[in-house]
C-alpha cells in the first residue's frame, strides 16, 4: 500500500511537471510563430500589400485571402512552414482568422501541411483555443480543437493580420507516456506487492505462523491446564490471571488496576496469606504450597494451593510474584473424609477391642469357673469311689469267711472292681482335661514380667533336661546364634520346652534325629525356628495342630493334645505369631516371632 501511494505521488508530480513543460513548449511555439508572422506581415505592409485601414472584423469574408498582401504573407508563412518539421506525433500549429463570423482555418501544420481552408462557426463549442486566440487572448488550456479532439493548446493572437495561432498537441499524446509509465509503474508496484506477498507467503509467513503457533500453544497451555496462572505486583494487584478462575471460582478475574489477589481470599485467612507473601519478599524465596480458601461466585469456599516464584528487578529486589493456583478442594474433601474414616475406624477399633477384651475376660473366667466347678463334683466322685473300694474290700474279706456263694464272689472279686476301675479311669481322664483347661486359662491370666531373656540359655537348659532322650535316641542338635529377647522368662521356657519336647517326641524311627534351632532377625522382630527331621504332619492335619485337645497322626506317644495350644496362647500373649510348615515323613519346622522391642510386646 505504501509502495502504491508513493508511486501515485511520484506519478502525479511527474505528470504536472511534464504538463507544465509541454505547455511552455507550446506557448513558445505559438508565440514565436505569432511574432514571426507579425514580422513578415509588417514587412509586407511596408510594401503596401495589406490594407491596414480596415480592421480585421470589417474587412469582410474575403478580405484575408483575397487581399494581395495578406495572401503573399500567408504564402510565405506556408513556405516557411514547409521547412518546419513540426513537433511530436500530433503536434500542430493552426492559423486561423475570422471570416463572415466564422473561424476560418488557414493553415494546419502537423506531420503534414494542410493548407485547404475550413470554417466553423465562431460560437461553436469546437476550437476553443483558436476562439480565445482570435479574441485576442493568449495562454494555455486543455480543450477541444476543431476536430473535437481533446488537446493541450497554447493560443496567441497575431496582431498584424488579425489572425490567431494555436500550437496544440493531442492531450492523448501528452498523456500517452504517462499512461505507459503509469502502467509500468503500476505493473512494477503490483509486481513488488506480489513479490512481497510471495515472500511473505513462502518465507515470512511460516516464521510468523510459527510464532503465532507457539503463542497459541502457550496460550492453550496456560488456558487449558487445570492450574490457574497469575501474576501480581508488590501491591498485590493482579497483572495477569488465566481464565481458569472461571472453572475454579466461577468467574474470570479482570486485571483492572487495583484488582487485588487478596480480595478473593476468604477474609479470615487473608492475614495469613499476606504474611506468607511478605515473608517470601523478605527472604526472596518462592512461595511454597500456601493453602488458603478462595470465595467461589456461589459463596462457597474453594481450597486453593498457591505456589509462586518471586519476580526480581535489576537490583535483585522482589517486584512481584508469578505463580499457579491449584484447586485442592477435592483433596481437602478426601482428606477430611479420610480423617473422618480414621476417627470412625479408631472408635470402632476401640469399641471392638473393648468388646474383645470383655469377651476374652469372660472366656478366661469361663475356663476358670468351668475347671473349678467341674473339679468339685469330680472330687466327690473319686472320693466316694475310693470309699466304695475300701468298703468293698472289707465286704470281700468278710464274705470269704462266711459265704462261698460263687455269684457273690464273682461280683465282689471281678465285676465290682472292674466297674470301679473304669469309673475311676474315666474320672482320671476328666480330671486331666480339666487340669489342661485350667492351665490354659492360667496361661491367659498370668501377669507377664518383661525382662531381657537369654534365649540361648533357655535352649541350653531345656536341652539339658532332655539329655536322656537326646543320648538314648542319638539325636544331633544344632543350635545357631540366638538373641536376647525382652520377654517373659517363664513363658519363653514353656514355649521352648514344648516345641523341643515335641521335636524329640515325634522323631522318625527310620533315621537319626536332627534338630536345628536358629533365628532370623528382620530388624523389628526375631523369628525363632525349630526344625526337625521327624515324622512330619500331613497336609490335612496341619491346620488343626494348634486346636485344643487335638492330637494328630499315630497315637503311639503319650500326650494331652494341649501343648501346642498352650504354646500358641503364650506366643500370642507375648505379641508374636506361631506357624508350622511340615511334610509327612520328612519333618516339621515350627517358627514363632517375637518383637525385639519390649513396648510392642506389652499389651
Amino acid at each position, binding site marked *: 500500500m505504501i509502495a502504491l501511494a508513493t508511486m501515485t505521488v511520484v506519478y502525479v508530480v511527474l505528470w504536472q511537471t511534464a504538463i507544465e513543460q509541454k505547455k511552455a513548449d507550446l506557448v513558445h511555439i505559438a508565440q514565436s510563430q505569432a511574432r514571426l508572422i507579425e514580422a513578415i506581415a509588417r514587412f509586407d505592409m511596408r510594401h503596401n500589400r495589406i490594407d491596414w485601414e480596415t480592421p480585421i472584423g470589417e474587412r469582410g469574408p474575403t478580405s484575408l485571402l483575397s487581399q494581395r498582401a495578406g495572401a503573399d504573407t500567408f504564402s510565405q508563412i506556408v513556405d516557411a512552414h514547409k521547412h518546419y518539421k513540426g513537433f511530436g506525433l500530433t503536434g500542430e500549429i493552426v492559423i486561423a482568422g475570422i471570416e463572415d463570423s466564422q473561424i476560418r482555418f488557414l493553415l494546419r501544420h502537423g506531420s503534414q501541411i494542410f493548407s485547404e481552408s475550413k470554417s466553423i462557426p465562431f460560437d461553436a463549442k469546437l476550437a476553443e483555443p483558436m476562439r480565445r486566440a482570435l479574441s485576442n487572448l493568449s495562454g494555455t488550456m486543455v480543450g477541444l480543437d476543431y476536430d473535437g479532439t481533446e488537446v493541450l493548446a497554447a493560443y496567441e493572437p497575431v496582431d498584424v493580420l488579425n489572425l490567431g495561432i494555436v500550437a496544440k498537441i493531442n492531450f492523448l499524446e501528452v498523456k500517452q507516456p504517462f499512461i505507459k509509465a503509469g502502467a509500468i509503474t503500476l505493473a512494477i508496484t503490483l509486481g513488488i506487492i506480489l513479490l512481497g506477498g510471495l515472500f511473505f507467503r513462502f518465507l515470512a509467513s511460516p516464521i510468523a505462523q510459527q510464532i503465532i503457533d507457539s503463542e497459541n500453544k502457550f496460550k492453550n497451555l496456560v488456558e487449558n491446564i487445570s492450574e490457574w496462572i497469575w501474576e501480581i505486583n508488590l501491591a498485590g494487584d493482579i497483572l495477569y490471571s488465566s481464565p481458569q478462575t472461571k472453572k475454579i471460582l466461577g468467574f474470570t478475574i479482570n486485571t483492572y488496576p487495583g484488582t487485588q489477589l487478596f480480595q478473593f481470599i476468604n477474609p479470615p485467612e487473608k492475614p495469613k496469606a499476606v504474611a506468607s507473601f511478605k515473608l517470601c519478599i523478605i527472604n526472596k524465596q518462592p512461595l511454597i504450597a500456601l493453602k488458603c480458601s478462595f470465595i467461589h461466585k456461589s459463596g462457597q469456599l474453594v481450597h486453593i494451593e498457591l505456589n509462586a516464584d518471586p519476580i526480581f528487578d535489576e537490583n535483585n529486589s522482589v517486584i512481584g510474584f508469578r505463580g499457579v493456583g491449584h484447586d485442592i478442594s477435592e483433596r481437602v474433601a478426601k482428606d477430611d473424609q479420610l480423617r473422618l474414616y480414621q476417627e470412625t475406624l479408631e472408635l470402632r477399633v476401640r469399641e471392638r477391642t473393648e468388646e474383645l477384651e470383655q469377651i476374652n475376660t469372660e472366656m478366661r473366667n469361663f475356663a*476358670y469357673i468351668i475347671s*473349678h*466347678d467341674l*473339679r*468339685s*463334683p*469330680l*472330687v*466327690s466322685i*473319686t*472320693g*466316694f*469311689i*475310693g*470309699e466304695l*473300694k475300701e468298703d468293698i474290700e472289707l465286704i470281700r474279706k468278710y464274705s470269704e469267711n462266711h459265704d462261698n456263694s460263687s455269684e457273690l464272689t464273682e461280683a465282689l472279686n471281678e465285676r465290682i472292681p472292674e466297674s470301679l476301675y473304669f469309673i475311676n479311669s474315666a*474320672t482320671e481322664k476328666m*480330671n486331666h482335661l480339666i487340669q489342661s483347661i485350667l492351665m490354659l486359662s*492360667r496361661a491367659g*491370666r498370668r501377669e507377664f514380667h518383661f525382662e531381657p531373656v537369654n534365649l540361648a540359655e533357655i535352649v541350653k537348659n531345656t536341652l539339658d533336661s532332655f539329655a536322656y532322650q537326646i543320648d538314648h535316641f542319638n539325636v544331633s542338635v544344632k543350635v545357631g546364634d540366638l538373641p536376647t529377647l525382652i520377654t517373659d522368662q517363664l513363658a519363653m521356657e514353656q514355649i521352648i520346652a514344648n516345641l523341643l519336647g515335641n521335636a524329640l517326641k515325634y522323631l522318625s524311627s527310620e533315621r537319626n534325629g536332627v534338630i536345628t534351632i536358629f533365628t532370623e532377625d528382620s530388624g523389628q522382630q526375631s523369628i525363632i525356628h525349630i526344625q526337625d527331621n521327624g515324622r512330619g504332619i500331613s497336609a490335612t492335619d496341619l491346620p488343626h495342630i494348634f486346636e485344643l485337645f487335638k492330637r494328630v497322626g499315630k497315637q503311639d506317644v503319650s500326650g494331652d493334645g494341649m501343648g501346642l495350644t498352650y504354646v500358641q496362647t503364650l506366643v500370642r500373649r507375648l505379641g508374636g505369631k506361631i506357624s508350622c510348615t511340615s511334610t509327612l515323613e520328612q519333618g516339621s519346622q515350627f517358627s514363632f516371632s517375637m518383637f525385639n522391642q519390649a513396648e510392642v510386646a506389652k499389651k
Partner: protein
Amino acid sequence: MNNISIILVDDEPAHNALVRRNLIKCGLANEIIPLSSGQQLLDFIFTEGKYKNQPLPQKILILLDINMPGITGIEVLKTLKTNAISCHIPVIIFTTSDDPAEINTCFRLGCNAYLVKPVEHHQFVEKIQELGRFLALTQIPYATT
C-alpha cells in the same frame, strides 16, 4: 483329748461327708459341724438367724470352701478376719482351686492354712490325715464369746 469343734463349710454335702468320714477314720473324735453356705457360717459364728441364742463352742476351727453360691469363701474369710469377735478363729481354706492368685488373696486376708482338695482319692485321704495330725497337735484358743 481335743475339744475343738470343727466346722465344715461347703455347698457340696458330699465333700463335707468325705471330710467327716476320713477325719473320723483317722481317729479324730472332735465335734464336726457341717454347714452348706457362707451365710450359715456367719449366722453360726455371730449367733444370728436360726443360730440365735445358740451358744458357740469354746474352741472352733473352720474348714472353708471358696466356690460357693451366695457369699463366697473369700468374702466370708474377709468378714471373719476383720471382726474382733471372730478374727482369732483359725480358718483353713479347703478348696478345689490351686490358683496362685487365689491362694495369695486368702493368705492376705488372713487364712491360717490353704489346702487344695485333691481329686485323687488316696491323696485326699492323706490330706485329711495330715489335717488330723495337725489338729491333734494344735492348741486352739478359746472363742472370745
